[in-house]
């Protein structure tokens, strides 16, 4: 019997463990608080595994390098925080448009601008959805525990590889820096998805963007004999630019449709006492930990409170939000921002149920007592 691999890790460290466990072998990054520990750990760990770490000259270069590495066949990741995440936006769009699997970690700090570099925040949530220009898909995960950082990092790579897109892992600074026990699962228990390859023999014609039944074109790597073209321009199935209106329409729609088609497998969420919840709290990341405590305390006081905790923030888990709110007379969305995810929840629930924001942008985590007051108050 093997000894369990027990660690006591911070979120940023657990992210590294998850990435390495799922097969990440390329990391490019640029130092920025509060994400820097991810780059630091990667620089030490990757070469020992035969992987590559490169410190780039800025965040624009970091995201460019991971896209290039992914095209050359490596599972690739970068990590950054607010200002760096803003700088990466153009090439995040490139990865989505050119359908290149990669993972971007954004350890959220206070903004806008340089903001509050070492304080916790969830103020990039809608940027993770809409940060890059143009209509585009988004797969965004936000963990609340150290074990979940490990697991969501594994999921992020699996989703990126399977869906051929850029997946964002949005970790708030509390989760990034707090420490918890983590039992790293043995390799046999970690599910690993790799990009789906076409059956290809030398001489075959390969269409890198051919519409398949699952809307995700099989992917070859550079150097494997297919000699294909990749561009951020609108392109046809061959990968070359097109201005054909029908192809523009279908190409742009497919990028979103492929995510919609797989929404069930992309959706990760937790329901805590939502079956009969009359007051529903919707919270994610470290805020959901306070919310869970507040829900327990409200239950002790006889209020039927419940917590819906999206782990997949986007694509928006609409069905699950509707189901959790089935008996709710009130919904509270506590966030370390000024009401970003609340807009999404409101959009799902309409005006039928009042949705209240509980918002703090003071660089402090939201206390359970504040959420409890919101649950109890009418």
């Amino acid at each position, binding site marked *: 019997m093997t000894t369990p691999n027990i660690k006591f890790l911070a979120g940023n460290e657990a992210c590294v463990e998850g990435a390495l466990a799922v097969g990440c072998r390329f990391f490019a990054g640029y130092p920025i608080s509060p994400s820097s520990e991810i780059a630091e750990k990667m620089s030490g760990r990757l070469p020992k595994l035969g992987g590559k770490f490169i410190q780039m000259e800025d965040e624009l*270069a970091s995201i460019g390098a991971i896209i290039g590495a992914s095209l050359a066949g490596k599972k690739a990741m970068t990590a950054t925080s607010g200002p760096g995440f803003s700088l990466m936006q153009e090439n995040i769009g490139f990865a989505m448009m050119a359908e290149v699997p990669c993972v971007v970690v954004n350890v959220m700090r206070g903004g806008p601008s340089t903001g509050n570099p070492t304080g916790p925040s969830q103020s990039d949530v809608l940027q993770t959805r809409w940060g890059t220009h143009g209509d585009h898909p988004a797969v965004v995960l936000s963990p609340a525990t150290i074990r979940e950082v490990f697991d969501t990092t594994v999921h992020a790579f699996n989703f990126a590889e399977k869906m051929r897109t850029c997946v964002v892992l949005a970790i708030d600074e509390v989760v990034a820096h707090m420490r918890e026990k983590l039992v790293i699962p043995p390799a046999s228990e970690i599910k690993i998805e790799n990009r789906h390859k076409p059956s290809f023999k030398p001489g075959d014609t390969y269409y890198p963007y051919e519409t398949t039944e699952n809307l995700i074109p099989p992917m070859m790597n550079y150097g494997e004999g297919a000699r294909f073209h990749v561009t951020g321009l609108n392109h046809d199935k061959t990968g070359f630019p097109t201005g054909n209106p029908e192809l523009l329409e279908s190409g742009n729609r497919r990028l979103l449709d492929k995510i919609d088609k797989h929404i069930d497998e992309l959706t990760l969420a937790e329901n805590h006492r939502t079956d009969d919840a009359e007051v529903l709290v919707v919270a994610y990341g470290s805020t959901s930990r306070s919310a869970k405590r507040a829900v327990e305390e409200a239950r002790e006081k006889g209020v039927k409170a419940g917590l819906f905790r999206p782990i997949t923030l986007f694509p928006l888990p609409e069905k699950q939000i509707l189901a959790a709110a089935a008996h709710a007379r009130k919904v509270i969305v506590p966030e370390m921002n000024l009401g970003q995810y609340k807009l999404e929840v409101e959009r799902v629930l309409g005006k039928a149920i009042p949705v209240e924001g509980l918002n703090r942008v003071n660089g402090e985590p939201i206390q359970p007592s504040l959420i409890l007051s919101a649950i109890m108050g009418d």
Partner: protein
Amino acid sequence: MSMDYFEYLRKDKMPHIWCPGCGHGTIMKSILRAIDKLQWNKDDVVVVSGIGCSSRTPGYLDFNTLHTTHGRALPFATGVKVANPKLHVIVVSGDGDAMAIGGNHFIHACRRNIEISLIVFNNNIYGMTGGQASPTTFTGSRGTTAPYGAIEQPFDVCGLAQGAGATFVGRALDMDAVAMDRVILASLKNKGFSVVDAWSQCTTYFGRQNKWGDATDMMQRYKGMTYNVRLSDKLSEEEKEGKYPVGVLYQATRPEFCEEYDKLIERVRPQETKAAANV
């Protein structure tokens, strides 16, 4: 003697977008002749570009090709090369792409000395967006954003590359295809980061705005603005004043990034194995 260009071209992507008189096609053919001479397997060649007229080159070439975002070709290319050092990576870029929006990546790729050849199709203007001044527009020359003549100093692409640490630096004019071949071939052979300042004439925007005439007039003018670096000793300082040397300007041997990383892997990997064995 003669090679079959169509072996390397995506015929169905022709005609290309370049204007009559543009020198970009000439430089592209020089790159193909160099690759042919080296007998590189097409499957192992990756050509990366940014945005601009020059950056449409990869689309015409039958290699692994990557048309990235404006200014970012070098970071993408760096990712490709580091991930799979067996691939031959060439970046084609313009003077705006490489020296303005991509200037930071340019100097750091030089410093890193990663085995990539950057061919700067330098026509001293932003062609694709309609003739705006670029970082290599000559002082006094006009662009649509410099209607009274540029008041800034242009970058010396080669001087900057050498200062930043590139281990091969060369310059050639499109009118001298033999010299262009020699410089590009030497750049592809260099075990490190190479920069070729490949001069091309933009007749449509630069030539017309500056009344520099047609393609042959511009070629003659560029010839007059340059001198062969091999004749440098025979020319007086006055003769060289304000002129650009052409040819292989600088070569050095310094550690190459991917090789150094492989050594690093060798160094740290056994240590971990040893440590694990001791536990």
